[in-house]
Each structure stands twice: as C-alpha cells, then as structure tokens.
C-alpha cells in the first residue's frame, strides 16, 4: 500500500487521462489560475478521450493505481467531432464490467472538462482524490508482484 513515509498516511496513485484539446487545457488553466488539487493526480496527455484504451486503465490498476479518471471535451464539443461519444460508450461498459467484478465503481470516473473550465478541473480532481482516499488502497486489481510487502 502506498503510504507517505513521513506521515504514514495513504497517498493514492491517481492517473488522469486528459484529452489534448479540452481537458489538458483545462488542467493548464487550473494551473495558471493556481487552483490546487492533490499532487497524487498525475496527468497523461492523449489526443482525445477516445484514445484511451481499456488496456491502459487496467494496466494502471495492475501497476498499483488506486483510481483512474478520464477527462475529455464535453459531448458535442469533441475536437474530432465524435471521439468522446465512442469514449463514453466504451468507458460506460468497462466501468460497468469492473463494478460487476466487484471493483468499487468510485475508482473510475469520466468527467467532461472544457478548456475554459479550470475550476471544474480542480474541483473534479479534489473530489475524485477525496473519493479514492475514502475507498483506500486498490487491492483488488493490482499486480502484487510490484509490491514489497
């Protein structure tokens, strides 16, 4: 379980996939507006939310991520017209499957964040990180080889 060496508190690993056009820019805006969110969130830039393969999400969990969030343009505003519509179906089905397997549905989330929504990006990440703290470490999907204990 990932813990802060000094405080002994649970410090989750959170992977955020952000589309280049809206959400990554929204995260930039959150940054330039100095809207804080936990350092536990690390962003991976992808061209579009439809680039996020379920394999990436499972891989993140396998390697010990405690939460995975995918952010894209609002439906209708996709830079590529339709990418987020496909992402929406894929992620809905994948999340439903994870829920079916007994993985807490709070560990996965999709949020639409536009380039102008720095505030929404920040609040979303704060909320999501709080949820992951509440759920605690991910033990159901991680590859235990990666851990020392």
């Amino acid at each position, binding site marked *: 379980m990932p813990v802060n060496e000094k405080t002994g508190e649970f410090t989750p690993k959170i992977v955020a996939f952000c589309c280049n056009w809206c959400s990554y820019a929204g995260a930039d805006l959150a940054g330039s507006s100095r809207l804080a969110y936990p350092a536990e969130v690390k962003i991976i830039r992808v061209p579009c939310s439809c680039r996020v*393969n*379920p*394999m990436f999400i*499972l*891989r993140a*969990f*396998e390697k010990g991520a405690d939460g995975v969030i995918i952010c894209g343009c609002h*439906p*209708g505003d996709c830079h590529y017209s*339709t990418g987020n*519509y*496909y992402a*929406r*179906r*894929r*992620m*809905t*089905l*994948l*999340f*439903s*499957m*994870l*829920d*079916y*397997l*007994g*993985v*807490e*549905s*709070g560990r*996965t*989330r*999709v949020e639409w964040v536009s380039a102008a929504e720095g505030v929404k990006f920040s609040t979303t990440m704060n909320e999501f990180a709080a949820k992951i703290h509440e759920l605690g470490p991910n033990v*159901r*999907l*991680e*590859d*235990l*080889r990666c851990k020392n204990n």
Partner: protein
Amino acid sequence: MQEQLINRAKELLADGTVVRVLGWRRGDMDYNPEVAYFNSADELNDFVYNGFCGANLSKYMIEASKLEGRTLVFLKPCDTYSFNQLLTEHRVDRDKAYIIGVGCRGKLDIEKIKAQGITGITGITGTPDAVKVSTIYGDFDIACKDIRLERCHVCKGKEHRVYDELIGESADTRDADRMAGVEAIEAMSPEEKFAFFRAELSKCIRCNACRNVCPACSCRKCVFDSTKFDSAQKANTTSFEEKMFHIIRAFHVAGRCTDCGECSRVCPQGIPLHLFNRKFIKDINELYGDYQAGESADQRAPLVSYTFEDAEPGIVSERGSK
C-alpha cells in the same frame, strides 16, 4: 438426420457444387466428435451429427474461405449468427460457402452426465429425447433435457439467419432466463462479486481454449500474443492477469459476441465465461437498445455507434451495486 446430411453432402460433392465438406467426424469417444474436412464420399462415412456436435463451425470458415473452391458447411441455428458476424467483419467469404442449416434439438453436455456420477463410459446412443449411456458398470438412460448445454436452455431461437438450404427439424429448448446468471451476480455485494470471480478466474490455466474456439476472437494475432501493448503473456503469473485477460477478451468481443456459448463449453476448468460476455450484452441492451450480434450481416455494432443522449459513465455508480 445424419444420413440425410451425408447423402446431401455426397450429392453436392458429386455435382461439383462444393469441393469439400466441413462437418463433424466420429471422435475417440461417442461424446467427442471432432471438426473435420471431408474431401470425398468415402471420407463422409465417418461423418456424424448427434447431440454432442456442439462445435460451432463458423470460425473454421475463415480458413476455408482461403481455400480453392466452395466449402459445404453445416450450421446450427445459433452458429449462423456467428457466420453473419464474420461476414460483417469481412472475415469469411459468402461465395466460398455453401451453407446447410441443420436442425437442432439442443446439444448435450458430457460434463453434466459425468456430474451424475456416471464413469467408465464406453458409448452413448440416443433418440431425440433421451440417451442411453453404456458404461463398464452397465447402461443408464438419461433424459436429454437434464443434460443440455447451458446455452441451449437460453437458446436464441431455432431460426437460421443465413443458409442455402435447410435440413432437419428443430425443437425449442429454451426454458431459462438468459440474464438470470448475470442478474444474480449483479445482486451481490462488491465483496461477494469479487470473491465469486476470484474463485472462478483463479481456476484459469490460460490454455486459450476460449479464445481459440471463439468466432469473434478471430484476430490473426491476439493482443496477448503480440508486442503491441507490452501485454504478451504465456501464463498467468499474478492474481491480476487472468482478470486482465478475460476483461479485455470480453471487451474486445463486446457488441460482436453472438452469445454462442462456445467459450464456456470448451473451458477445461469449467469457468462460466459466458457471464462476462452476457454482462456486456445486458448492458448494451439496457443502455443502447436491444442488439443481437449476427442477426443480420449489415448491422452497425453498438461500440462503433453512438447517440447524442447516451448514458454517461457515471450511471454505473449511480445505479450502484444492486
């Protein structure tokens, strides 16, 4: 019906309509027929069609489509859905196939016979409604309805979706709710769900039988065998990998799986793999409208379509763990 099929196959070979026949051949045991090509009338003498011919021949048509000349293939009603799906995906050549839709009265599960404590089986003969199982300890009569494959209890129907001609009568075998198994799991608590799947999936030996038999899993090279995702695996080495494999396998066939049930039939460990595929089918039906893969060859699959008003992924946590 077997004789009828053999005779018709011989005719079609003789008049040059087809150059080979794809069907089932007697195996080492009566309950173990093998999938085989028959190139001559002589070879057809080994042809069988009985309650244990569950194997779906559609997938074999991918390779048969590459061969010279036309192939006669026997497809049961449920197999035709798979054939249609393969047609949609340009994996089989309709012109290379002569399809005889064969009647089906439900197929049988040898495991269910063995589960009744019957061992030392030497032969099985039968009528449409019952089988006589001969063993070294004596003979047993068993009603077919008690030993049907799971998939036959939730049969999609006895109508062939694609064929050139039909031979043989079918009988409806549906007597259960297809989604009951999925619903039972959905009703569990997260802990119970996790425990259930951990117990089932920990049996997986990664023999790949499910993948190899699946008509939808027809990739030339599976992602789990390629270097494209750093995901090449020969065997499960951790508690996670079998989950990864089965989730991704089910995801890759989501919207394409016809629910033919072959994965569960062939699994040597008896893992109810259809529960993965049916979960996706259930979600697709509930969220995006009823969809049956393979119903026709010109459908647009749910994962390559969308509507503006589709449910948001948050619906999963909203409806919660039932």
